[in-house]
């Protein structure tokens, strides 16, 4: 196991951790987005979806634990990278310009990441750690989004998630070594499409719910 | 002292084998007891240091740049010759040997050149094994091209960056030895003296270019691979730090300097723009395959090239050399360009350029085809000049490129100082009076990978070398001398900068000891150099202090040596009363304005011995005998 720790703690090892956990998140967000689409078909549809999901309870628990593990790894590794990278340039440039490689997404990765973390904590407290006997997830959504501020926070947060994914998606392929001039343009396009889908798909949920209630 | 070339006896093709057998061997267990200093990390130095490390010697390797990988060899573009005959077009070791001897206008040693041709084959194998990404054909085998007017395709290349790739190959082997601990590298160090103890080279003094400290390093042998001295002319295609200092200070300690006036001038370089110009950039010779060289017929015609009709252009190379046309050899092309400019027909703002025109080639083959062949060269030209060669003719002018002269060495590459060896461009050995394209890289690597590892073993095994360390008084004395020179340079605080003096020296050498020489101007040059040198020591302004990174001081030291060395070049040129290869004395030419050799009186190597600052150097000659080739007069008509 020693070799594993040794290799995974190198610069490339850490990059790999980010990519694998990021990939896990991408998968989760995809499923979550798909699930949330059922909101748009009304309360019944949504609750049926939640029920079917919860029939798989033991699996869900495993998935949740896995997600938690991914989150811990992604966040701590991300933080380590952030501080190491700061330290790698002890003196800053007086003038700093981009040559065109960076994007808003890539520049803001650690910051969007951190805000997403705050959001997820908030989100879980509102949707996950609720008394399910008292309140269905649908009620939770209605509750939350009836507050205009929460709606705005959610909309802002999912845009941040979109920005994070805008860079993260292609970046994880690059980190895994999957950069090929034939396929990279496709991957980049897919990433942008997915980022937009996430931002738009999630952002309309609060709007829609406010509209129907 | 007589010059002993130590050329082995026997038939030409057996000499090197026999010699290797006869050389004494160092017992493998003893190799780790020997310390060797290698100065220089170009092809010659890096190859030598790495190989000696592989053999088990303790090697210390010095260079001026911040990394060994930056030595000037990195800039070589065209390629490297080898007698592989992969092209099956009739090449052979013998043909490469013959071409090299003939190309050098019969002023190189047969035995050395033959060995070089033999080893050329091993060099390619070695480089391929190191991972040098040579150009390949679709079948996956190595590609060759014909270079510099050769009749066979024997040049291996890696795009236009052959020198870079070969050097990175040698550098990688060197880094591997650094990793094993057999070689230690000392970058940002400039060698300022060789230290001689009991008649043998036993160490060097270097200046640490970061701290300014003088460091003494002792060893059992010293290998010099410090490159050429083309920068004596100020403007050349050489890197800025190329210098004669290391070699010159060895000369002052007793190493003879051979053929210092043999300088190759390359015809296709980007011309000078203004006085601020710091270096000249080579444009590959291959351009002359499709470009047509011309100047306006009327001197002083300042019209733009497009406005000069064909009838008012002089395609002088095509006119004068109908069968070779634009493809005449380097020296002929250079000489003619200068001649045209001297007649006032030069073009561009300075009048020191001729056109190299691709309009006809583009009209004939199409822009595509020309771009496929020369695209990157055209881009480079445009980057530097801001002009687009597809639209307007290129301007070119000759520039100093390579120095065939160097420290005199015997067949073992040892100088006249025991234990001091010299490799690569810093020695004089294999190119005679003119170097063929793509053979300097070959020579540097042959010296480094395949010759010095044997011959230095022979020296070490055959010599009694008492322990010497850097506390010996010889080291202290040498350090003291350097320190006083450094202090002197810093104390003058005159009015003219180092670069200013360097420019002035360069102009003298270029004007009077350059493409074409004559006795009268050479004498004039000698005088002018002496005067300039005098002024230098009274009026140079070297800012900063000694105990610091001080680039002006570094340059001042180099220019000071060029000032003395320039006179040696002139002396040699005066003495050689013939024309041969690149040495063209206008008094000695054929009716066709070809170099006219005097084999009766000058079929020799001129090796100069230093006798002190006030006295003229003493000439020793090593006669050259040609048993295997016939001396012929070349003709390009």
């Amino acid at each position, binding site marked *: 196991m020693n070799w594993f720790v040794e290799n995974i703690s190198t610069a490339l090892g850490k990059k790999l951790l980010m990519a694998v956990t990021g990939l896990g998140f991408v998968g989760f967000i995809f499923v979550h987005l798909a699930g949330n689409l059922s909101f748009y078909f009304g309360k019944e549809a949504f609750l049926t979806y939640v029920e079917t999901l919860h029939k798989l309870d033991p699996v869900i628990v495993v998935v949740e634990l896995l997600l938690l593990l991914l989150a811990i790894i992604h966040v701590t590794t991300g933080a380590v990278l952030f501080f190491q*990278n700061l330290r*790698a340039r002890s003196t800053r440039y*007086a003038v*700093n310009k*981009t040559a065109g490689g960076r994007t808003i997404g890539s520049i803001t990765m650690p910051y969007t990441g951190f805000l997403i973390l705050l959001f997820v904590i908030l989100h879980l407290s509102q949707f996950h750690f609720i008394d399910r006997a008292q309140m269905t997830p649908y009620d939770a959504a209605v509750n939350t989004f009836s507050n205009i501020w929460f709606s705005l926070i959610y909309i802002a947060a999912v845009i941040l998630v979109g920005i994070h994914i805008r860079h993260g998606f292609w970046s994880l392929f690059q980190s895994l070594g999957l*950069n090929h001039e034939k396929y990279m343009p496709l991957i980049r396009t897919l990433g942008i499409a997915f980022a937009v889908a996430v931002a738009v798909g999630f952002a309309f949920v609060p709007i829609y719910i406010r509209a129907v209630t | 002292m007589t010059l002993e070339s130590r050329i082995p006896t026997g038939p030409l093709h057996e000499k090197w084998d026999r010699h290797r057998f006869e050389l004494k061997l160092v017992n493998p267990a003893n190799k780790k007891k020997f310390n060797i200093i290698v100065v220089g990390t170009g092809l010659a130095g890096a190859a030598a240091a790495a*190989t000696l490390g592989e053999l088990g010697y303790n090697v210390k390797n010095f260079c001026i740049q911040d990394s060994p990988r930056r030595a000037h060899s990195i800039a070589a573009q065209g390629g490297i010759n080898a007698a592989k005959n992969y092209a099956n077009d009739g090449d052979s070791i013998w043909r490469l040997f013959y071409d090299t001897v003939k190309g050098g206008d019969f002023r190189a040693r047969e035995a050395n050149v033959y060995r070089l041709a033999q080893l050329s084959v091993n060099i390619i194998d070695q480089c391929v094994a190191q991972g040098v990404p040579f150009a390949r054909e679709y079948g996956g085998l190595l590609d060759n091209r014909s270079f510099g007017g050769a009749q066979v395709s024997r040049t291996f290349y890696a795009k236009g960056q052959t020198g870079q790739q070969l050097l990175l190959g040698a550098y990688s082997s060197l880094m591997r030895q650094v990793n094993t601990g057999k070689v230690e590298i000392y970058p940002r160090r400039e060698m300022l003296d060789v230290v001689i103890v009991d008649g043998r080279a036993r160490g060097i003094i270097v200046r640490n270019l970061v701290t300014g400290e003088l460091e003494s390093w002792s060893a059992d042998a010293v290998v010099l691979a410090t490159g050429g001295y083309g920068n004596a002319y100020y403007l050349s295609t050489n890197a800025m730090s190329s210098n004669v200092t290391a070699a010159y200070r060895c000369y002052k300690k007793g190493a003879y300097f051979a053929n210092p006036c043999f300088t190759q001038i390359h015809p296709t370089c980007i011309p000078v723009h203004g006085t601020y110009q710091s270096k000249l950039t080579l444009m590959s010779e291959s351009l002359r395959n499709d470009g047509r060289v011309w100047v306006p017929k009327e001197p002083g015609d300042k019209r733009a090239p497009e406005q000069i009709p064909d009838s008012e252009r002089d395609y002088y190379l095509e006119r004068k050399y109908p069968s070779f046309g634009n493809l005449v050899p380097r020296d002929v092309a250079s000489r003619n360009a200068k001649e045209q400019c001297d007649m006032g027909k030069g073009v561009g703002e300075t009048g020191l350029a001729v056109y190299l025109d691709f309009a006809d080639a583009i009209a004939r083959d199409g822009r595509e085809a020309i771009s496929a062949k020369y695209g990157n060269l055209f881009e480079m030209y445009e980057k530097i000049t801001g002009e687009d060669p597809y639209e307007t003719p290129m301007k070119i002018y000759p520039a100093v490129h390579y120095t065939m002269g160097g420290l005199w060495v015997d067949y073992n590459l040892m100088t006249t100082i025991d234990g001091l060896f010299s490799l690569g461009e810093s020695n004089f050995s294999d190119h005679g009076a003119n170097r063929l394209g793509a053979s300097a890289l070959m020579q540097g690597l042959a010296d480094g990978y395949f010759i010095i590892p044997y011959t230095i073993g022979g020296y070490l095994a055959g010599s009694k070398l008492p322990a010497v360390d850097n506390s010996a008084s010889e080291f202290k004395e040498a350090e003291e001398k350097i320190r006083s020179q450094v202090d002197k340079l810093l104390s003058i605080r005159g009015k003219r900068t180092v670069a200013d003096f360097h420019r002035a020296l360069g102009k003298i050498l270029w004007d009077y000891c350059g493409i074409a020489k004559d006795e009268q101007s050479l004498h004039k040059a000698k005088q002018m150099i002496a005067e300039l040198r005098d002024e230098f020591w009274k009026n140079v302004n070297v800012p900063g202090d000694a105990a610091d990174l001080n680039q*002006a001081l570094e340059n001042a030291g180099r220019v000071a040596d060029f000032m003395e060395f320039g006179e040696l070049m002139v002396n040699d040129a005066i003495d050689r009363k013939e024309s041969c290869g690149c040495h063209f004395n206008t008094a000695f030419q054929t009716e066709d304005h070809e170099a006219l050799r005097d084999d009766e009186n000058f079929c020799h190597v001129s090796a100069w011995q230093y006798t002190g600052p006030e006295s003229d150097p003493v000439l020793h000659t090593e006669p050259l005998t040609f048993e295997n080739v016939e001396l012929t007069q070349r003709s390009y008509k």
Partner: protein
Amino acid sequence: MSSRTINLTLKVWRQNKNNPAGALETYPANDISTDMSFLEMLDVVNEGLTEQGIEPIAFDHDCREGICGMCGAVVNGRAHGHMPETTLCQLHMRHFKDGDTIVIEPWRARAFPVLKDLVVDRSAMDKIIQAGGYISINAGGAQDGNSIPVPRDNAETAFNAAACIGCGACVAACPNASAMLFTGAKISHLCLLPQGKPEAKKRALSMVRAMDELGFGNCSNEAECEAECPKGISITEIARMNREFIKAAFS
């Protein structure tokens, strides 16, 4: 093209043993011909400074034709200046305008300490190569050069990676001062050739480790390196290194 002259204001990083903290100093650069290269412009400024009794600006350079990798400075926030695929020595003054202010700073990275003014210590790059950027072959032991065919495409891709001049602009331009492009280029060059395969695993692991130990930052795929690299080395070389590393680390 007819040459013009322009006047500029330079803000140059000056740092030496008497001023270890360093600061930007302002100097005029007048009557600069637009045919000059950036370094020739600095030469001219330095001659002027020398005449005024000010120590000239120290900067590294050697070949002045874009191949040795010795030169380099951050010019107005851009490594080697703003022209694509151009080293500082090949950057010409015709790309600046009369009256421009030019800020010139050294490469900045913890792994590249400043020695003086614009001169930095890049020996960390040699150390990365020492960790494995070679094929272990002794002189004399090689077989015939044509005994191993190399597909032309591979040879060209290897060449493109090998074209790296080791200038360090990638590190200077990377927001994280990471040396991934440099290291990736060398690992790619060697792993693409059959000769380099036997040591591929060991090489990838040890070179990556060396990079960490020397204090370079991590890569977050910012692609600034690729945009500034004077030799047009692509971040696909970083991806290839990642692949090599994964193969080496987990098999």
